[in-house]
Protein backbone atom coordinates (compact mmCIF):
# COMPACT_ATOMS: atom_id res chain seq x y z
CA UNK A 1 0.00 0.00 0.00
CA UNK A 2 1.47 3.36 -0.98
CA UNK A 3 -0.82 5.51 1.18
CA UNK A 4 -2.08 4.58 4.63
CA UNK A 5 -5.53 6.02 4.01
CA UNK A 6 -6.17 3.58 1.17
CA UNK A 7 -6.98 1.11 3.93
CA UNK A 8 -10.50 2.55 4.26
CA UNK A 9 -11.32 0.64 1.07
CA UNK A 10 -11.17 -2.66 2.90
CA UNK A 11 -14.46 -2.53 4.85
CA UNK A 12 -16.19 -1.37 1.68
CA UNK A 13 -14.96 -4.44 -0.18
CA UNK A 14 -15.89 -6.79 2.66
CA UNK A 15 -19.41 -5.35 2.82
CA UNK A 16 -19.74 -5.59 -0.96
CA UNK A 17 -18.93 -9.28 -0.96
CA UNK A 18 -21.23 -9.98 1.97
CA UNK A 19 -24.19 -8.32 0.27
CA UNK A 20 -23.34 -10.14 -2.98
CA UNK A 21 -23.93 -13.43 -1.17
CA UNK A 22 -27.31 -12.16 0.03
CA UNK A 23 -28.23 -11.12 -3.50
CA UNK A 24 -27.55 -14.58 -4.88
CA UNK A 25 -29.50 -16.35 -2.13
CA UNK A 26 -32.57 -14.28 -2.96
CA UNK A 27 -31.99 -14.88 -6.68
CA UNK A 28 -32.12 -18.62 -6.05
CA UNK A 29 -35.32 -18.27 -4.00
CA UNK A 30 -36.97 -16.42 -6.89
CA UNK A 31 -35.65 -18.92 -9.37
CA UNK A 32 -37.44 -21.62 -7.39
CA UNK A 33 -40.62 -19.57 -7.10
CA UNK A 34 -40.65 -19.42 -10.89
CA UNK A 35 -41.27 -23.17 -11.01
CA UNK A 36 -42.75 -23.90 -7.58
CA UNK A 37 -45.06 -20.90 -7.51
CA UNK A 38 -46.13 -21.12 -3.87
CA UNK A 39 -42.63 -21.64 -2.44
CA UNK A 40 -42.32 -19.51 0.74
CA UNK A 41 -45.69 -17.87 0.02
CA UNK A 42 -47.09 -15.83 1.74
CA UNK A 43 -44.07 -15.28 4.03
CA UNK A 44 -41.89 -14.06 1.15
CA UNK A 45 -43.88 -13.05 -1.94
CA UNK A 46 -41.95 -12.92 -5.21
CA UNK A 47 -42.00 -9.14 -5.42
CA UNK A 48 -40.33 -8.80 -2.02
CA UNK A 49 -37.60 -11.28 -2.93
CA UNK A 50 -37.09 -9.38 -6.18
CA UNK A 51 -36.68 -6.03 -4.43
CA UNK A 52 -34.13 -7.56 -2.11
CA UNK A 53 -32.27 -9.23 -5.02
CA UNK A 54 -32.01 -6.13 -7.21
CA UNK A 55 -31.51 -3.58 -4.44
CA UNK A 56 -28.74 -5.65 -2.86
CA UNK A 57 -27.12 -5.80 -6.29
CA UNK A 58 -27.16 -2.04 -6.67
CA UNK A 59 -26.04 -1.38 -3.11
CA UNK A 60 -23.14 -3.81 -3.21
CA UNK A 61 -21.97 -2.44 -6.53
CA UNK A 62 -22.06 1.04 -4.98
CA UNK A 63 -20.01 -0.24 -2.04
CA UNK A 64 -17.61 -1.67 -4.61
CA UNK A 65 -17.37 1.58 -6.58
CA UNK A 66 -16.79 3.61 -3.42
CA UNK A 67 -14.17 1.20 -2.12
CA UNK A 68 -12.49 1.29 -5.52
CA UNK A 69 -12.44 5.08 -5.49
CA UNK A 70 -11.01 5.22 -1.96
CA UNK A 71 -8.31 2.81 -3.03
CA UNK A 72 -7.49 4.37 -6.39
CA UNK A 73 -7.74 8.10 -5.84
CA UNK A 74 -4.98 8.48 -3.23
CA UNK A 75 -2.64 6.47 -5.44
CA UNK A 76 -3.59 8.39 -8.59
CA UNK A 77 -3.44 11.74 -6.79
CA UNK A 78 -0.25 10.81 -4.94
CA UNK A 79 -1.58 12.09 -1.64
CA UNK A 80 -3.44 10.77 1.39
CA UNK A 81 -7.24 10.74 1.33
CA UNK A 82 -8.74 14.09 2.38
CA UNK A 83 -10.61 12.53 5.32
CA UNK A 84 -10.37 8.84 6.19
CA UNK A 85 -12.66 9.47 9.18
CA UNK A 86 -15.44 10.72 6.93
CA UNK A 87 -15.01 7.66 4.73
CA UNK A 88 -15.41 5.30 7.67
CA UNK A 89 -18.35 7.26 9.09
CA UNK A 90 -20.16 7.16 5.76
CA UNK A 91 -19.44 3.46 5.49
CA UNK A 92 -21.37 2.74 8.67
CA UNK A 93 -24.20 5.09 7.78
CA UNK A 94 -24.60 3.42 4.39
CA UNK A 95 -24.39 -0.09 5.80
CA UNK A 96 -26.93 0.53 8.56
CA UNK A 97 -29.31 2.39 6.24
CA UNK A 98 -29.02 -0.41 3.69
CA UNK A 99 -29.61 -3.13 6.27
CA UNK A 100 -32.64 -1.31 7.73
CA UNK A 101 -34.12 -0.90 4.28
CA UNK A 102 -33.76 -4.60 3.48
CA UNK A 103 -35.25 -5.55 6.86
CA UNK A 104 -38.09 -3.16 6.15
CA UNK A 105 -38.81 -4.89 2.83
CA UNK A 106 -38.75 -8.28 4.50
CA UNK A 107 -40.74 -7.62 7.65
CA UNK A 108 -43.04 -4.65 7.03
CA UNK A 109 -45.83 -4.72 4.44
CA UNK A 110 -44.72 -2.43 1.63
CA UNK A 111 -47.74 -0.11 1.92
CA UNK A 112 -47.06 0.32 5.65
CA UNK A 113 -43.39 0.93 4.98
CA UNK A 114 -44.38 3.63 2.51
CA UNK A 115 -46.62 5.30 5.08
CA UNK A 116 -43.98 5.14 7.82
CA UNK A 117 -41.22 6.67 5.71
CA UNK A 118 -42.85 9.74 4.22
CA UNK A 119 -44.10 8.44 0.88
CA UNK A 120 -47.22 10.55 1.40
CA UNK A 121 -45.07 13.67 1.45
CA UNK A 122 -43.26 12.79 -1.76
CA UNK A 123 -44.30 9.59 -3.54
CA UNK A 124 -41.21 7.97 -5.05
CA UNK A 125 -41.62 4.29 -4.14
CA UNK A 126 -43.00 1.31 -6.00
CA UNK A 127 -41.07 1.72 -9.25
CA UNK A 128 -38.69 -0.97 -10.43
CA UNK A 129 -35.17 -0.61 -8.93
CA UNK A 130 -36.28 2.60 -7.18
CA UNK A 131 -38.34 0.85 -4.50
CA UNK A 132 -36.35 2.42 -1.62
CA UNK A 133 -38.28 4.47 0.96
CA UNK A 134 -37.90 8.23 0.68
CA UNK A 135 -35.68 8.26 3.77
CA UNK A 136 -33.33 5.73 2.22
CA UNK A 137 -33.19 7.69 -1.02
CA UNK A 138 -32.28 10.83 0.92
CA UNK A 139 -29.68 8.82 2.83
CA UNK A 140 -28.15 7.64 -0.43
CA UNK A 141 -27.87 11.23 -1.63
CA UNK A 142 -26.22 12.34 1.62
CA UNK A 143 -23.72 9.48 1.57
CA UNK A 144 -22.99 10.13 -2.10
CA UNK A 145 -22.37 13.84 -1.48
CA UNK A 146 -20.07 13.16 1.47
CA UNK A 147 -18.20 10.60 -0.57
CA UNK A 148 -17.87 12.88 -3.59
CA UNK A 149 -16.69 15.72 -1.38
CA UNK A 150 -13.99 13.50 0.10
CA UNK A 151 -12.82 12.18 -3.25
CA UNK A 152 -12.96 15.57 -4.98
CA UNK A 153 -10.97 17.27 -2.21
CA UNK A 154 -8.35 14.54 -2.40
CA UNK A 155 -7.99 15.04 -6.11
CA UNK A 156 -7.85 18.81 -5.80
CA UNK A 157 -4.86 18.68 -3.48
CA UNK A 158 -2.94 16.16 -5.57
CA UNK A 159 -2.04 15.02 -9.06
CA UNK A 160 -4.91 15.05 -11.55
CA UNK A 161 -4.73 12.08 -13.89
CA UNK A 162 -7.10 11.25 -16.72
CA UNK A 163 -8.13 8.07 -14.92
CA UNK A 164 -9.16 9.85 -11.76
CA UNK A 165 -10.91 12.60 -13.75
CA UNK A 166 -12.96 10.03 -15.64
CA UNK A 167 -13.74 8.15 -12.43
CA UNK A 168 -14.85 11.33 -10.73
CA UNK A 169 -17.00 12.35 -13.68
CA UNK A 170 -18.69 8.95 -13.62
CA UNK A 171 -19.31 9.14 -9.88
CA UNK A 172 -20.72 12.67 -10.05
CA UNK A 173 -22.93 11.56 -12.92
CA UNK A 174 -24.13 8.63 -10.85
CA UNK A 175 -25.22 10.95 -8.05
CA UNK A 176 -26.76 13.56 -10.34
CA UNK A 177 -28.86 11.15 -12.38
CA UNK A 178 -30.05 9.46 -9.19
CA UNK A 179 -31.83 12.72 -8.40
CA UNK A 180 -34.38 11.82 -11.09
CA UNK A 181 -35.59 9.07 -8.74
CA UNK A 182 -37.28 11.85 -6.76
CA UNK A 183 -39.30 12.89 -9.79
CA UNK A 184 -42.44 10.80 -10.08
CA UNK A 185 -45.09 12.60 -12.13
CA UNK A 186 -48.71 11.34 -12.17
CA UNK A 187 -48.46 11.08 -15.94
CA UNK A 188 -47.33 7.47 -16.45
CA UNK A 189 -45.58 8.23 -19.73
CA UNK A 190 -43.47 10.97 -18.18
CA UNK A 191 -42.84 8.81 -15.12
CA UNK A 192 -41.40 6.09 -17.37
CA UNK A 193 -39.57 8.57 -19.59
CA UNK A 194 -37.55 10.01 -16.71
CA UNK A 195 -37.24 6.72 -14.83
CA UNK A 196 -34.86 5.69 -17.59
CA UNK A 197 -32.73 8.75 -16.87
CA UNK A 198 -31.71 6.90 -13.74
CA UNK A 199 -31.61 3.36 -15.04
CA UNK A 200 -30.37 3.65 -18.62
CA UNK A 201 -28.17 6.71 -18.15
CA UNK A 202 -26.56 4.85 -15.28
CA UNK A 203 -25.70 1.51 -16.83
CA UNK A 204 -25.21 2.68 -20.41
CA UNK A 205 -23.81 6.07 -19.51
CA UNK A 206 -22.02 7.24 -16.41
CA UNK A 207 -21.35 3.81 -14.91
CA UNK A 208 -19.42 2.93 -18.04
CA UNK A 209 -17.05 5.78 -17.21
CA UNK A 210 -16.47 4.19 -13.82
CA UNK A 211 -16.03 0.81 -15.50
CA UNK A 212 -13.46 2.21 -17.91
CA UNK A 213 -11.53 4.01 -15.18
CA UNK A 214 -11.35 0.94 -12.91
CA UNK A 215 -10.24 -1.28 -15.75
CA UNK A 216 -7.64 1.24 -16.93
CA UNK A 217 -6.23 1.55 -13.40
CA UNK A 218 -5.82 -2.18 -12.93
CA UNK A 219 -4.35 -2.59 -16.42
CA UNK A 220 -1.69 0.04 -15.76
CA UNK A 221 -0.77 -1.72 -12.53
CA UNK A 222 -0.64 -5.28 -13.79
CA UNK A 223 0.85 -4.67 -17.26
CA UNK A 224 3.17 -1.73 -16.67
CA UNK A 225 2.10 -0.31 -20.05
CA UNK A 226 2.68 3.42 -20.49
CA UNK A 227 -0.02 5.56 -18.88
CA UNK A 228 -0.24 7.82 -21.93
CA UNK A 229 -1.33 4.90 -24.08
CA UNK A 230 -3.87 3.57 -21.63
CA UNK A 231 -5.41 6.95 -20.93
CA UNK A 232 -5.77 7.71 -24.62
CA UNK A 233 -7.69 4.46 -25.04
CA UNK A 234 -9.83 5.35 -22.07
CA UNK A 235 -10.88 8.65 -23.62
CA UNK A 236 -11.68 7.00 -26.93
CA UNK A 237 -13.81 4.34 -25.24
CA UNK A 238 -15.82 6.72 -23.11
CA UNK A 239 -16.34 9.04 -26.07
CA UNK A 240 -17.90 6.15 -27.97
CA UNK A 241 -19.94 5.27 -24.89
CA UNK A 242 -21.60 8.62 -24.43
CA UNK A 243 -21.94 9.49 -28.11
CA UNK A 244 -23.97 6.30 -28.63
CA UNK A 245 -25.45 5.75 -25.20
CA UNK A 246 -27.13 9.08 -24.47
CA UNK A 247 -29.40 9.09 -27.53
CA UNK A 248 -29.47 5.29 -27.21
CA UNK A 249 -31.84 5.86 -24.28
CA UNK A 250 -34.42 5.95 -27.07
CA UNK A 251 -34.47 2.13 -27.18
CA UNK A 252 -36.69 2.34 -24.11
CA UNK A 253 -39.09 4.86 -25.63
CA UNK A 254 -40.61 2.70 -28.37
CA UNK A 255 -43.77 1.47 -26.61
CA UNK A 256 -44.37 3.68 -23.59
CA UNK A 257 -46.33 6.42 -25.32
CA UNK A 258 -43.44 8.60 -26.53
CA UNK A 259 -43.41 9.85 -30.15
CA UNK A 260 -42.63 7.19 -32.72
CA UNK A 261 -39.50 8.91 -34.06
CA UNK A 262 -37.79 7.33 -31.05
CA UNK A 263 -37.94 4.02 -32.90
CA UNK A 264 -35.41 5.51 -35.32
CA UNK A 265 -33.25 7.47 -32.89
CA UNK A 266 -33.22 4.59 -30.41
CA UNK A 267 -32.52 1.84 -32.91
CA UNK A 268 -29.72 3.65 -34.75
CA UNK A 269 -27.82 4.93 -31.75
CA UNK A 270 -28.25 1.92 -29.48
CA UNK A 271 -27.18 -0.37 -32.33
CA UNK A 272 -23.82 1.43 -32.06
CA UNK A 273 -23.58 0.95 -28.29
CA UNK A 274 -21.75 -2.39 -28.60
CA UNK A 275 -18.77 -0.59 -30.21
CA UNK A 276 -17.35 0.84 -26.97
CA UNK A 277 -17.78 -2.54 -25.30
CA UNK A 278 -15.92 -4.18 -28.15
CA UNK A 279 -13.22 -1.54 -27.88
CA UNK A 280 -12.91 -2.30 -24.18
CA UNK A 281 -12.24 -5.98 -24.86
CA UNK A 282 -9.65 -5.19 -27.52
CA UNK A 283 -8.11 -2.68 -25.14
CA UNK A 284 -7.79 -5.18 -22.28
CA UNK A 285 -6.25 -7.93 -24.41
CA UNK A 286 -3.99 -5.49 -26.21
CA UNK A 287 -2.57 -4.08 -23.00
CA UNK A 288 -2.03 -7.50 -21.47
CA UNK A 289 -0.24 -8.67 -24.64
CA UNK A 290 1.99 -5.60 -24.57
CA UNK A 291 2.76 -6.00 -20.87
CA UNK A 292 6.15 -4.88 -19.64
CA UNK A 293 6.09 -6.92 -16.46
CA UNK A 294 4.75 -10.21 -15.12
CA UNK A 295 2.53 -9.24 -12.24
CA UNK A 296 2.32 -11.97 -9.60
CA UNK A 297 -1.44 -11.50 -9.30
CA UNK A 298 -2.60 -13.75 -12.15
CA UNK A 299 -6.16 -13.83 -10.81
CA UNK A 300 -6.56 -10.07 -11.18
CA UNK A 301 -5.39 -10.24 -14.80
CA UNK A 302 -7.94 -12.99 -15.45
CA UNK A 303 -10.76 -10.92 -13.95
CA UNK A 304 -9.71 -7.90 -16.04
CA UNK A 305 -9.74 -9.85 -19.29
CA UNK A 306 -12.97 -11.57 -18.29
CA UNK A 307 -14.64 -8.21 -17.69
CA UNK A 308 -13.84 -7.14 -21.23
CA UNK A 309 -15.20 -10.31 -22.81
CA UNK A 310 -18.30 -10.75 -20.66
CA UNK A 311 -19.31 -7.08 -20.78
CA UNK A 312 -19.12 -7.26 -24.56
CA UNK A 313 -21.20 -10.44 -24.65
CA UNK A 314 -23.81 -9.38 -22.10
CA UNK A 315 -24.22 -5.72 -22.96
CA UNK A 316 -22.96 -5.65 -26.54
CA UNK A 317 -24.20 -8.90 -28.07
CA UNK A 318 -27.25 -9.60 -25.91
CA UNK A 319 -28.14 -5.91 -25.93
CA UNK A 320 -27.96 -5.73 -29.72
CA UNK A 321 -30.09 -8.86 -30.00
CA UNK A 322 -33.24 -7.03 -28.89
CA UNK A 323 -32.47 -3.36 -29.37
CA UNK A 324 -33.83 -2.76 -32.89
CA UNK A 325 -37.45 -1.59 -32.69
CA UNK A 326 -38.94 -4.31 -34.93
CA UNK A 327 -37.31 -7.00 -32.78
CA UNK A 328 -38.04 -5.26 -29.50
CA UNK A 329 -41.71 -5.10 -30.46
CA UNK A 330 -41.82 -8.84 -29.81
CA UNK A 331 -39.19 -9.27 -27.10
CA UNK A 332 -40.06 -6.24 -24.93
CA UNK A 333 -40.56 -7.27 -21.30
CA UNK A 334 -39.89 -10.97 -21.91
CA UNK A 335 -37.32 -13.43 -20.55
CA UNK A 336 -34.98 -12.12 -23.27
CA UNK A 337 -34.81 -8.91 -21.26
CA UNK A 338 -33.99 -10.88 -18.10
CA UNK A 339 -31.29 -12.86 -19.95
CA UNK A 340 -29.63 -9.67 -21.13
CA UNK A 341 -30.01 -7.93 -17.76
CA UNK A 342 -28.20 -10.75 -15.99
CA UNK A 343 -25.24 -11.16 -18.30
CA UNK A 344 -24.76 -7.42 -18.77
CA UNK A 345 -24.81 -6.60 -15.06
CA UNK A 346 -22.55 -9.52 -14.27
CA UNK A 347 -20.12 -9.06 -17.15
CA UNK A 348 -19.70 -5.34 -16.76
CA UNK A 349 -20.26 -4.25 -13.19
CA UNK A 350 -19.95 -7.35 -11.03
CA UNK A 351 -16.79 -8.40 -12.80
CA UNK A 352 -15.10 -5.02 -12.78
CA UNK A 353 -15.69 -4.66 -9.05
CA UNK A 354 -14.31 -8.16 -8.51
CA UNK A 355 -11.33 -7.22 -10.70
CA UNK A 356 -10.51 -4.32 -8.47
CA UNK A 357 -11.06 -6.32 -5.30
CA UNK A 358 -8.84 -9.06 -6.68
CA UNK A 359 -6.08 -6.57 -7.36
CA UNK A 360 -6.39 -4.41 -4.26
CA UNK A 361 -7.39 -6.79 -1.50
CA UNK A 362 -4.07 -8.67 -1.30
CA UNK A 363 -2.23 -5.34 -1.13
CA UNK A 364 -4.60 -4.11 1.58
CA UNK A 365 -3.72 -7.29 3.43
CA UNK A 366 0.00 -6.62 3.12
CA UNK A 367 1.17 -8.59 0.08
CA UNK A 368 1.48 -7.93 -3.65
CA UNK A 369 -0.50 -11.03 -4.50
CA UNK A 370 -2.10 -13.98 -2.80
CA UNK A 371 -0.38 -17.34 -2.57
CA UNK A 372 -0.57 -19.49 -5.72
CA UNK A 373 -2.98 -21.83 -3.93
CA UNK A 374 -5.38 -19.04 -3.06
CA UNK A 375 -5.14 -17.73 -6.62
CA UNK A 376 -5.93 -21.10 -8.11
CA UNK A 377 -9.05 -21.24 -5.99
CA UNK A 378 -10.01 -17.72 -6.99
CA UNK A 379 -9.58 -18.62 -10.64
CA UNK A 380 -11.80 -21.66 -10.15
CA UNK A 381 -14.46 -19.39 -8.74
CA UNK A 382 -14.00 -17.09 -11.74
CA UNK A 383 -14.72 -19.92 -14.17
CA UNK A 384 -17.58 -21.42 -12.18
CA UNK A 385 -19.43 -18.15 -11.74
CA UNK A 386 -18.76 -16.97 -15.27
CA UNK A 387 -19.75 -20.21 -16.97
CA UNK A 388 -22.80 -20.52 -14.73
CA UNK A 389 -23.82 -17.01 -15.77
CA UNK A 390 -23.37 -17.93 -19.45
CA UNK A 391 -25.74 -20.84 -18.94
CA UNK A 392 -28.26 -18.78 -16.98
CA UNK A 393 -28.26 -16.40 -19.92
CA UNK A 394 -28.60 -19.16 -22.52
CA UNK A 395 -31.49 -20.86 -20.69
CA UNK A 396 -33.32 -17.58 -20.18
CA UNK A 397 -32.79 -16.76 -23.84
CA UNK A 398 -34.29 -20.11 -24.84
CA UNK A 399 -37.20 -19.50 -22.48
CA UNK A 400 -37.60 -16.03 -23.95
CA UNK A 401 -37.65 -17.17 -27.56
CA UNK A 402 -40.29 -19.78 -26.78
CA UNK A 403 -42.29 -17.30 -24.73
CA UNK A 404 -42.32 -14.77 -27.55
CA UNK A 405 -43.30 -17.47 -30.02
CA UNK A 406 -46.09 -19.06 -27.98
CA UNK A 407 -47.57 -15.90 -26.52
CA UNK A 408 -46.96 -13.19 -29.09
CA UNK A 409 -46.30 -14.62 -32.56
CA UNK A 410 -48.18 -17.89 -32.93
CA UNK A 411 -51.56 -17.74 -34.65
CA UNK A 412 -53.24 -19.20 -31.56
CA UNK A 413 -51.51 -17.23 -28.79
CA UNK A 414 -51.41 -18.80 -25.33
CA UNK A 415 -52.06 -16.75 -22.22
CA UNK A 416 -49.10 -15.59 -20.14
CA UNK A 417 -49.56 -18.26 -17.48
CA UNK A 418 -50.13 -21.08 -19.97
CA UNK A 419 -46.94 -20.04 -21.75
CA UNK A 420 -44.99 -20.09 -18.49
CA UNK A 421 -46.11 -23.69 -17.92
CA UNK A 422 -44.80 -24.69 -21.34
CA UNK A 423 -41.31 -23.36 -20.71
CA UNK A 424 -40.77 -24.45 -17.12
CA UNK A 425 -38.02 -26.88 -18.15
CA UNK A 426 -35.78 -23.92 -18.94
CA UNK A 427 -36.52 -22.33 -15.59
CA UNK A 428 -35.41 -25.53 -13.88
CA UNK A 429 -32.19 -25.48 -15.90
CA UNK A 430 -31.66 -21.83 -14.97
CA UNK A 431 -32.06 -22.75 -11.32
CA UNK A 432 -29.46 -25.52 -11.59
CA UNK A 433 -27.03 -23.08 -13.20
CA UNK A 434 -27.79 -20.71 -10.35
CA UNK A 435 -26.74 -23.35 -7.83
CA UNK A 436 -23.44 -23.73 -9.72
CA UNK A 437 -23.06 -19.97 -9.52
CA UNK A 438 -23.54 -20.14 -5.75
CA UNK A 439 -20.91 -22.89 -5.49
CA UNK A 440 -18.52 -20.66 -7.42
CA UNK A 441 -19.28 -17.83 -5.02
CA UNK A 442 -18.61 -20.01 -1.98
CA UNK A 443 -15.25 -21.02 -3.46
CA UNK A 444 -14.57 -17.34 -4.02
CA UNK A 445 -15.18 -16.69 -0.31
CA UNK A 446 -12.96 -19.60 0.70
CA UNK A 447 -10.11 -18.26 -1.44
CA UNK A 448 -9.79 -15.35 0.99
CA UNK A 449 -8.99 -17.71 3.84
CA UNK A 450 -6.47 -19.99 2.12
CA UNK A 451 -3.02 -19.48 3.55
CA UNK A 452 0.23 -20.52 1.88
CA UNK A 453 3.52 -18.89 0.97
CA UNK A 454 3.13 -15.67 -0.92
CA UNK A 455 6.27 -15.20 -2.95
CA UNK A 456 6.33 -11.45 -3.01
CA UNK A 457 6.04 -9.03 -0.11
CA UNK A 458 3.99 -5.87 0.05
CA UNK A 459 4.86 -3.08 -2.35
Amino acid sequence: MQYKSQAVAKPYFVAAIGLFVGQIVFGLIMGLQYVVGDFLFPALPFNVARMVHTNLLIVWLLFGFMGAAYYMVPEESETELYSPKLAIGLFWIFLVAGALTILGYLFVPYATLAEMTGNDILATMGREFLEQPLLTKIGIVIVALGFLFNISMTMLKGRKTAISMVLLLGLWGLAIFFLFSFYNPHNLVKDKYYWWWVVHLWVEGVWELILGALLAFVLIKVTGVDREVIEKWLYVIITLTLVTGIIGTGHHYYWIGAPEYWQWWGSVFSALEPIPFFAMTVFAFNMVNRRRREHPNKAAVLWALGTGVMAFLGAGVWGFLHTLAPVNYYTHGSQITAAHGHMAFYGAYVMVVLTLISYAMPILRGRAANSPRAQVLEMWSFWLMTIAMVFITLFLTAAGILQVWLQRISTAPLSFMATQDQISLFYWLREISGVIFLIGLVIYLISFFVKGESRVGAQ
Partner: protein
Amino acid sequence: MSGTFTKSMARNIFYGGTVFFFLLFLALTYDTNQALPKRDNSQNLTPEVIAGKKIWETRNCIGCHTLLGEGAYFAPELGNVYVRRGPDFIKAWIQAQPTGAPGRRQMPQFHLSDKELDDLVAFLKYASEINTANWPPNIEG
Protein backbone atom coordinates in the same frame (compact mmCIF):
# COMPACT_ATOMS: atom_id res chain seq x y z
CA MET B 1 -3.51 5.04 -32.24
CA SER B 2 -0.45 6.55 -33.90
CA GLY B 3 1.73 9.30 -32.51
CA THR B 4 -0.24 12.08 -34.16
CA PHE B 5 -3.42 11.30 -32.27
CA THR B 6 -2.61 12.58 -28.80
CA LYS B 7 -4.29 12.12 -25.47
CA SER B 8 -5.38 15.73 -25.32
CA MET B 9 -7.06 15.41 -28.72
CA ALA B 10 -8.91 12.35 -27.42
CA ARG B 11 -9.96 14.28 -24.34
CA ASN B 12 -11.26 17.23 -26.35
CA ILE B 13 -13.29 14.97 -28.61
CA PHE B 14 -14.73 13.34 -25.50
CA TYR B 15 -15.91 16.59 -23.95
CA GLY B 16 -17.12 18.02 -27.26
CA GLY B 17 -18.97 14.86 -28.28
CA THR B 18 -20.59 14.42 -24.90
CA VAL B 19 -21.84 17.98 -24.70
CA PHE B 20 -23.14 17.87 -28.26
CA PHE B 21 -25.08 14.64 -27.86
CA PHE B 22 -26.39 15.56 -24.45
CA LEU B 23 -27.78 18.81 -25.84
CA LEU B 24 -29.31 16.90 -28.74
CA PHE B 25 -30.93 14.57 -26.21
CA LEU B 26 -32.34 17.55 -24.31
CA ALA B 27 -33.73 18.97 -27.55
CA LEU B 28 -35.44 15.65 -28.36
CA THR B 29 -36.79 15.54 -24.81
CA TYR B 30 -38.24 19.02 -25.23
CA ASP B 31 -39.89 18.00 -28.46
CA THR B 32 -41.22 14.82 -26.86
CA ASN B 33 -42.81 16.81 -24.08
CA GLN B 34 -44.49 19.04 -26.65
CA ALA B 35 -45.84 16.06 -28.56
CA LEU B 36 -46.92 13.95 -25.58
CA PRO B 37 -50.42 15.34 -24.95
CA LYS B 38 -51.53 13.82 -28.28
CA ARG B 39 -50.51 10.33 -27.15
CA ASP B 40 -50.25 10.03 -23.39
CA ASN B 41 -53.96 10.14 -22.47
CA SER B 42 -53.16 12.85 -19.93
CA GLN B 43 -56.60 14.42 -20.46
CA ASN B 44 -57.93 11.48 -18.46
CA LEU B 45 -55.64 11.94 -15.45
CA THR B 46 -58.55 12.22 -13.01
CA PRO B 47 -58.14 12.25 -9.21
CA GLU B 48 -59.20 8.58 -9.25
CA VAL B 49 -56.44 7.68 -11.73
CA ILE B 50 -53.88 9.57 -9.65
CA ALA B 51 -55.04 7.77 -6.49
CA GLY B 52 -54.95 4.48 -8.39
CA LYS B 53 -51.37 5.05 -9.48
CA LYS B 54 -50.39 5.56 -5.87
CA ILE B 55 -52.08 2.30 -4.84
CA TRP B 56 -50.31 0.57 -7.71
CA GLU B 57 -46.98 1.90 -6.42
CA THR B 58 -47.46 1.33 -2.70
CA ARG B 59 -48.47 -2.33 -3.29
CA ASN B 60 -45.44 -2.86 -5.51
CA CYS B 61 -47.49 -4.53 -8.28
CA ILE B 62 -44.49 -3.87 -10.57
CA GLY B 63 -42.48 -6.41 -8.53
CA CYS B 64 -44.38 -9.27 -10.23
CA HIS B 65 -46.08 -7.70 -13.26
CA THR B 66 -45.01 -5.67 -16.25
CA LEU B 67 -46.82 -2.43 -17.12
CA LEU B 68 -46.32 -1.44 -20.77
CA GLY B 69 -43.60 -4.07 -20.86
CA GLU B 70 -41.54 -2.78 -17.94
CA GLY B 71 -41.26 -4.38 -14.53
CA ALA B 72 -41.03 -8.04 -13.53
CA TYR B 73 -41.72 -11.03 -15.76
CA PHE B 74 -43.33 -13.30 -13.17
CA ALA B 75 -46.98 -12.45 -13.83
CA PRO B 76 -49.14 -11.16 -16.71
CA GLU B 77 -48.76 -7.79 -18.47
CA LEU B 78 -51.25 -5.34 -16.98
CA GLY B 79 -50.99 -2.39 -19.40
CA ASN B 80 -53.82 -3.92 -21.41
CA VAL B 81 -55.54 -6.00 -18.71
CA TYR B 82 -58.46 -3.58 -18.70
CA VAL B 83 -59.10 -4.50 -22.33
CA ARG B 84 -58.34 -8.19 -21.81
CA ARG B 85 -60.47 -8.76 -18.73
CA GLY B 86 -62.65 -5.72 -18.05
CA PRO B 87 -63.25 -3.84 -14.77
CA ASP B 88 -65.43 -6.38 -12.96
CA PHE B 89 -63.06 -9.26 -13.49
CA ILE B 90 -60.10 -7.18 -12.26
CA LYS B 91 -61.87 -6.22 -9.04
CA ALA B 92 -63.15 -9.72 -8.39
CA TRP B 93 -59.71 -11.15 -9.14
CA ILE B 94 -57.87 -8.89 -6.73
CA GLN B 95 -60.40 -9.63 -3.99
CA ALA B 96 -60.14 -13.38 -4.53
CA GLN B 97 -56.35 -13.64 -4.08
CA PRO B 98 -54.46 -15.74 -3.30
CA THR B 99 -55.77 -18.67 -5.30
CA GLY B 100 -53.93 -21.12 -3.08
CA ALA B 101 -53.68 -23.53 -6.04
CA PRO B 102 -50.81 -25.84 -5.06
CA GLY B 103 -47.55 -25.16 -6.89
CA ARG B 104 -49.08 -22.26 -8.83
CA ARG B 105 -47.60 -18.75 -8.70
CA GLN B 106 -49.39 -16.72 -6.08
CA MET B 107 -50.54 -13.13 -5.83
CA PRO B 108 -51.00 -11.67 -2.31
CA GLN B 109 -54.24 -10.41 -0.76
CA PHE B 110 -54.01 -6.62 -0.46
CA HIS B 111 -57.21 -5.93 1.55
CA LEU B 112 -58.24 -3.02 -0.68
CA SER B 113 -61.49 -1.15 -0.05
CA ASP B 114 -64.11 -0.75 -2.79
CA LYS B 115 -62.97 2.80 -3.38
CA GLU B 116 -59.36 1.68 -3.68
CA LEU B 117 -60.32 -1.04 -6.13
CA ASP B 118 -62.20 1.49 -8.25
CA ASP B 119 -59.19 3.81 -8.26
CA LEU B 120 -56.89 0.98 -9.28
CA VAL B 121 -59.21 0.01 -12.12
CA ALA B 122 -59.39 3.66 -13.22
CA PHE B 123 -55.59 3.71 -13.34
CA LEU B 124 -55.45 0.49 -15.38
CA LYS B 125 -58.07 1.88 -17.76
CA TYR B 126 -56.07 5.09 -18.19
CA ALA B 127 -52.89 3.07 -18.84
CA SER B 128 -54.63 0.95 -21.45
CA GLU B 129 -55.58 4.06 -23.43
CA ILE B 130 -52.05 5.41 -23.84
CA ASN B 131 -50.93 5.29 -27.47
CA THR B 132 -48.19 2.65 -27.34
CA ALA B 133 -47.59 2.31 -31.09
CA ASN B 134 -49.67 -0.88 -31.09
CA TRP B 135 -47.75 -2.69 -28.38
CA PRO B 136 -48.33 -5.41 -27.16
CA PRO B 137 -48.59 -7.52 -30.33
CA ASN B 138 -51.80 -9.19 -29.14
CA ILE B 139 -54.26 -9.19 -26.27
CA GLU B 140 -52.27 -11.69 -24.20
CA GLY B 141 -49.64 -8.98 -23.58
